[in-house]
């Protein structure tokens, strides 16, 4: 493969090229290791009117909603800072009438992505929640939040959800090659389905690796290159959340964020400092080091615990043995060509 196919760019270019006002945007990561820098870049670029999908909306959803990027939210679980006093950006926006939310269960949300990933128009989900308000209370999706069909085999009622096919997925992974083959390990959650359900995919990764690293570990690839639009190398790209094999959750920074997020003014001040105040992730890390020193980052850097290598080797990589004889036929190329000539098998 040549450089021509490289999809490597910086976060600014990736977001401006592939995320647009009014998009249906899905955060591919589930709970851990979110694509913090890509979310920050969306906020810095002032993208508006998003319909945001997030399996479990915590830090990432809070900043995107707090940044005024989101009109509609599809999720299963949102953050609350603690007790009756602790608010959240999602709660404040719902109260202010600037955000509509559709609630699903974890399974239903993931089923919508699986349907989208496979090109199906809907997916069967578990029937139990049919009796609850999840089923009855609906916002912007209306009748299409769920539909009930009759099973053609048993005659039973079956609950279904429509496929999700977001315009764009942003997702952070451990490593990728420059063509876009993205490798991710740890809690698989719904990461691959969210990415593959989407029309465009923007990947950020801790490091870009050579293609042969990918080729020798294809079981770790969750998104194949031909689906990917942009690859952004961002060390510490998920901070203050964690990336397995790279760094742990920064509990201090995370706590400071959530304390700030209890009020609108608090969140605004935090974002002024860490999102708007840092033009990219490098500046963010520089600011962090300036404020807290290197010790806090060093404390959360992962120590190595490598998985055992999988052997992708085979007995040979050529039909010709060391004596240049074909392994099955036992003859050289010249001998083979002579036989073809003698048997009258050659034309032209």
């Amino acid at each position, binding site marked *: *493969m*040549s450089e*021509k*196919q490289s999809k490597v760019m910086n976060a600014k270019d990736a977001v401006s090229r592939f995320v647009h006002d009014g998009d249906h945007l899905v955060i591919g990561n589930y709970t851990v290791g979110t694509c913090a820098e890509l979310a920050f870049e969306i906020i810095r670029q002032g993208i508006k009117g998003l319909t945001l999908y997030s399996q479990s909306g915590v830090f990432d959803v809070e900043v995107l909603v707090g940044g005024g990027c989101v009109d509609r939210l599809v999720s299963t679980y949102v953050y609350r800072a603690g007790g009756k006093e602790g608010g959240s950006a999602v709660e404040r926006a719902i109260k202010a009438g600037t955000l509509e939310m559709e609630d699903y269960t974890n399974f239903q949300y993931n089923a919508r992505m699986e349907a989208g*990933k*496979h*090109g*199906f128009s809907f997916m069967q989900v578990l029937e139990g929640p049919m009796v609850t308000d999840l089923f009855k209370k609906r916002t912007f999706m209306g009748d299409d939040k769920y539909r009930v069909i009759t099973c053609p085999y048993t005659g039973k009622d079956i609950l279904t959800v429509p496929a999700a096919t977001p315009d764009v997925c942003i997702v952070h992974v451990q490593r990728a*090659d420059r063509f876009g*083959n993205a490798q991710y390990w740890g809690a698989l959650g719904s990461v691959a389905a969210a990415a593959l359900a989407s029309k465009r995919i923007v990947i950020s990764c801790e490091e870009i690796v050579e*293609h*042969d690293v*990918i*080729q*020798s*570990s*294809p*079981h770790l*690839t969750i*998104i*194949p*290159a*031909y*689906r990917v639009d942009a690859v952004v190398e961002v060390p510490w790209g998920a901070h203050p959340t964690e990336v397995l094999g790279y760094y742990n959750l920064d509990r201090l920074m995370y706590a400071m964020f959530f304390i700030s997020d209890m009020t609108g003014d608090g969140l605004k001040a935090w974002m002024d400092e860490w999102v708007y105040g840092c033009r990219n992730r490098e500046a963010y890390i520089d600011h962090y080091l300036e404020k807290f020193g290197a010790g806090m980052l060093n404390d959360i850097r992962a120590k190595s615990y490598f998985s055992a290598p999988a052997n*992708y*080797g*085979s*007995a*040979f*990589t*050529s*039909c*010709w043995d060391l004596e240049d004889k*074909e392994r*099955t*036929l*036992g*003859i050289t*190329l010249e001998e*083979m*060509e002579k*036989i*073809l*000539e003698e*048997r009258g*098998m*050659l*034309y*032209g």
Partner: protein
Amino acid sequence: MAKKYTLDELLIITAAREIHDYENIILGVGLPTTAGALAKAIHAPHATLMMESGIIDFEPLVPPNHIADAHSCRGFSYATDLFSAFTMTYRGFVDVCFLGVAQIDKYGNINTTAIGDYYKPKLRLTGSGGAADFISYARRTILTMRGGEFVDKLDYFTSPGYLDGGDSRERAGLFPPGSGPSMLLTTKGVFRFDEQTKEMYLARTHPGMSIDDIRKDIPWELKIADDVSTTDRPTDEEITFIRRFAPTEVVGRKLMFELGLANAARKAQEKNNG
């Protein structure tokens, strides 16, 4: 002087030339994989080669023994499952697939299941495998027939070509616009499908084959392209690649068995002498 070539080499190279750079290709064992390897080595270096077992983006170094043969390459980019390989085709991410044919009608509909009565078959063939789904949703399908037959009516309808011809495939509402078989390769020539009527016509004849030779295999009045000519000859580069990559494909099955058995006998003899 240009290199001489075998009929099998001509077929492989003609198929390979249907693959364009940057396309996603689903390959089967035998001719298709050799064609895919050739295309990737020579004129389509960025093509993504796939097998329906879930081996995605591989560079074959030896011909695979079956469609789940990761021994044929040195790693690959993405390990997925069969279900996802088919749904990625359903969603339109596969540009080209290759299918073998046992019976074909004038609109490119295919039988690979049974000859004679399905319930009491004269010959029970392989069945669909991936065929019926792939030809439904790949953007283009390349058909190969070595030893099969042209018929007015299939004994069993396994895989949908252009149905009753004309716009009937599109009217069915089941298939992406523009999909369907784009070429049929046989041991005698190259056939394509008319843009309007979707009826098969003869586009090229292989060396040494006359139009009459080809007509006598076909039960209907075969249409012939105005510009029908001999199949384009392979280049030396293409022939050299195939002989190194897939010598057993080059010699054909019959000669492979003959030479292979002789080789085995020689090894046994050496052991006895040694």
